[in-house]
């Protein structure tokens, strides 16, 4: 199991039966692979669907049916389509139980930056700002570092996605909970020590007495 799969598998454990979940493009999409079908999770695509089943092959593709990443998809029985205004009504209105997003940076206050690198990469925020502002729980799913550089930093120097504190950070090495006291290390992977983890984390980590070993 590679890093991304490990992250996806761990994130999937957070959901409860019947939850409404929005998975961001890229790594977060993999989370769906680890969610048992009988949990009846409703996967939401901000482009206008509740009840995504999975991506489909070219032969099964309907040109009018995509997810928010532009991939052709299939739907579950009991799915629903709607326009963008209803879709973001669900998002902003607090009707999504979880949104899982990637990040460029997360900081000690739990702030997330994931939509631009000034002067370099300007994809735009798409639905990310609304998702982070509106979902009941925000989970950041990302590799712990990029090209060896820590992504969990003291203070984001990239433009923030929202001033709302995210609820959980899941990397291949750690599960971290941002709180008003700071970042609490909840779980650590079995193949890394706390000291090693601190070396690849810029932000201060609070190590609690009941630190658990991450199931990988």
């Amino acid at each position, binding site marked *: 199991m590679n890093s991304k799969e490990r992250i996806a598998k761990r994130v999937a454990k957070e959901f409860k039966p019947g939850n409404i979940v929005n998975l961001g493009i890229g790594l977060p999409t993999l989370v769906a692979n680890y969610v048992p079908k009988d949990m009846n999770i409703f996967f939401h695509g901000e482009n206008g669907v509740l009840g995504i089943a999975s991506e489909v092959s070219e032969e099964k593709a309907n040109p*009018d*049916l995509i997810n*928010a990443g532009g991939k052709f998809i299939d739907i579950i029985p009991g799915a629903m389509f709607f326009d*963008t*205004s209803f879709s973001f009504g669900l*998002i902003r209105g607090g009707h999504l139980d979880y949104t899982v997003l990637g990040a460029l940076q997360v900081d000690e206050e739990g702030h997330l930056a994931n939509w631009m690198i000034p002067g370099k990469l*300007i994809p735009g925020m798409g*639905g990310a700002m*609304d998702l982070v502002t*509106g979902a009941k729980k925000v989970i950041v799913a990302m590799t712990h570092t990029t090209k060896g550089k820590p992504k969990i930093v003291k203070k984001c120097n990239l433009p923030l996605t929202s001033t709302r504190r995210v609820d959980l950070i899941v990397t291949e090495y750690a599960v971290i909970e941002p709180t008003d006291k700071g970042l609490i290390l909840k779980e650590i992977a079995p193949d890394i020590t706390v000291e090693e983890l601190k070396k690849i984390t810029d932000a201060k980590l609070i190590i609690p007495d009941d630190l658990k070993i991450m199931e990988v």
Partner: protein
Amino acid sequence: MKIVKAEEAISSVNDGDSLMIGGFLGVGTPETLIDELIKQNKKNLTIICNDTSFENKGIGKLIYNKLARKVITSHIGTNKETQRQYIEKELEVELVPQGTLIERIRAGGVGLGGVLTPTGVGTIVEEGKQVIEIDGKKYLLEKAIRAKVALIKAKRADHVGNLQFALTAINFNPMMGLAADLVIAEVEELVPTGVISPEHVQFPGALVDYVVIGGRSK
């Protein structure tokens, strides 16, 4: 409502006009109308859209052919040409959070002055905007937006011009149809009135100016 060829419908668009164009990564985008805009070589357009799609698809083709002066959109990450023109200052880009963009369009269509949204508070999206506190919580005042013309895409129209959209191809289309002075709808097929049940009509024909029969989604 009048059923016309793309040529006639698009001849109502003038250089410099503001255009709302439906679609999400090209799905639900009126491709025939876009091709006609390019054929008639309209200039200096302001385009309001969710994203600029891909270079060879939907709104991306308008960017590639340099018909736009400005784009108001939530995402340009799938189109390198948009990013290049933006960085090299050939194109003005106003990035708006997607939920704010659709609400601003809706506000323009339903006669509200603006939107009071928590999205963007404390970020660079807040810059230059009024922050309004309601019961201790902060909201950005995001202004309503309208356009001269809306180019929307539906699956089918009946003879009254009532529209029905397909699956996720609905996205921005109905709200854009409310927020423009002239509404041009591209559809894949025309059906007799009554084939779309009154409970399933998603946009009223009474508000559609032109219907253009285009090709099937690909």
